[in-house]
């Protein structure tokens, strides 16, 4: 009996989570610029409008560039730091880890504005580069957390065995460490990419005239007649990212099926 009540709750909670998300696709196909029930017929014109909106496509391009650069850099930086923290007995590791994790405990608005002050003081132009620096700040702690967990999860004897069997350091790194770390690396790339792609506040203050997609969306929210188009954009982002997650999960399972000791 109790279990049935819990099941009911679980479905109610799921409904709460999905209600706002379903608003996006539903009204993106609604043939009216007013976002209210009752629905007034099916249309794809908002998607057509989106396809001819060059400002949006430009912002999308900006966001993709920033997110790719941020994901690559923060994962590389996270990878080296995670290796240092898990494989070397260094003095001050805890302090360094605390310092690197600090952005997780500071509200984004403070990070954004302190970076804005730095850019102004050094006459660094507000640009996509400035946004990427800001995103690096919030993505490195994420990458580090994911990668440390992965390094701790695999058996370091495997690396030593490889060295004992005569592989050099680089070959050991490429043939043993990287394949074993791959799920962690993929997870880190995915998490940092999504974080950067979706980040608004830092980009809002640091992007100058080079709007990223969230900054562009923020600008559109003021114009009621543009809203259905923005909802169509949201529906596309949702579909694309769900596809990406399922793909990543599929790739991860492919990797897991290979016999891998300690993976």
């Amino acid at each position, binding site marked *: 009996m109790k279990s049935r009540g*819990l099941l009911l709750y679980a479905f109610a*909670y799921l409904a709460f*989570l*999905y209600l*706002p998300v379903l608003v996006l696709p539903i009204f993106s196909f609604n043939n009216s610029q007013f976002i209210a029930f009752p629905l007034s017929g099916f249309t794809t014109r908002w998607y057509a409008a989106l396809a001819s909106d060059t400002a949006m496509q430009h912002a999308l391009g900006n966001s993709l560039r920033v997110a790719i650069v941020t994901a690559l850099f923060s994962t590389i930086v996270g990878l*080296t730091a995670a290796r240092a923290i898990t494989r*070397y007995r260094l003095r001050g590791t805890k302090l360094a880890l605390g310092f690197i994790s600090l952005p997780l405990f500071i*509200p984004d608005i*403070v990070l954004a504005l302190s970076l804005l002050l730095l850019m102004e003081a050094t006459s660094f132009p507000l640009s996509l580069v400035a946004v990427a620096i800001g995103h690096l700040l919030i993505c490195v702690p994420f990458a580090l957390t994911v990668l440390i967990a992965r390094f701790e999860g695999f058996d370091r004897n495997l690396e030593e065995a490889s060295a004992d069997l005569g592989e050099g350091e680089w070959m050991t790194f490429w043939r043993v460490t990287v394949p074993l770390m791959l799920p962690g690396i993929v997870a880190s790339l995915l998490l940092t990419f999504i974080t950067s792609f979706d980040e608004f506040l830092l980009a809002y203050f640091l992007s100058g005239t080079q709007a990223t997609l969230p900054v562009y969306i923020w600008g559109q929210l003021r114009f009621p007649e543009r809203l259905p188009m923005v909802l169509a954009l*949201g529906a596309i982002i949702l579909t694309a990212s769900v596809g990406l997650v399922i793909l990543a999960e599929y790739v991860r399972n492919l990797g897991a099926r290979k016999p891998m000791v300690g993976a």
Partner: protein
Amino acid sequence: MADSGRNAGEGYALIAPALVVMGLALAAPLLLMTLTSLKSQQGLGFAHGWTLAQYGAVLGEASYRALFIRSVVISGLVTVVTVCLAYPMAYFVAFHTKRKFLWLLALTIPFWTSYLLRVFAWKIILGFDGVINSGLMRLHLISQPLGLLLYNPFAVVVTLAHAWAAFAILPIYVSLEKIDPALLEAASDLGDGAVRRFLRITLPLSLPGVIGAAVLIFVPTTGDYVTPALVGGTQGTMIANLIEVQFNGVGNWPLGAALSLVSMAMVAVIAGLFVTAARAARQAAR
């Protein structure tokens, strides 16, 4: 590990890039912000000399104090509501279903779209001619749209409780999943009923997850700008909105810097208390 002493230099070289990034993008900007907060605005620039006037204003002015308190109360409420709603859900996935992966996937998919649009969707749902009002009117349950749904702290709490749900479900699920079933059986064998067993075994053992979730939610929601700006109205304005105005609108950067640093310190102290509590809970659970 025996050779780790010899390679210490290599280890420091590996961690250096991360420290450089944080030094340049975190330490230097925060230092600059501290210096700015000790200035005072004069026209478009700063007046000469250093002053604590901004801190006097931030701590002395009643309207700022009220906004700080409101921000903490709202995000405290958000934290409690989010965690309480998520706990039974995480409990269900951990103990009452075999399709754990499917449930976790279903629970995280809503978070894979733009944060801005998820927040904005609530504006559509709660609005004057929004989903709830037009739905209730159509069902003839109300004759006038309800105006009290949007532009108040309630709307902010609902929206944030939705936006941060995944950050509560996942840590709580992980800590529940770790509980040894033998402990639960032992409690039952020794005569504990379901409720007693939950209160004495399950809840204390899952406390680290609950407190972890609380920190993950409290820190970012206290400084959230988007949600209060979109659904908060004047009654739901929070500290980040005031800070933004200092940098964008009126233009008093030193005051904005002081407000930022004080709210950062406030969040750090509260988060620190949470973490201390988490550590105590973990020790008690052992």
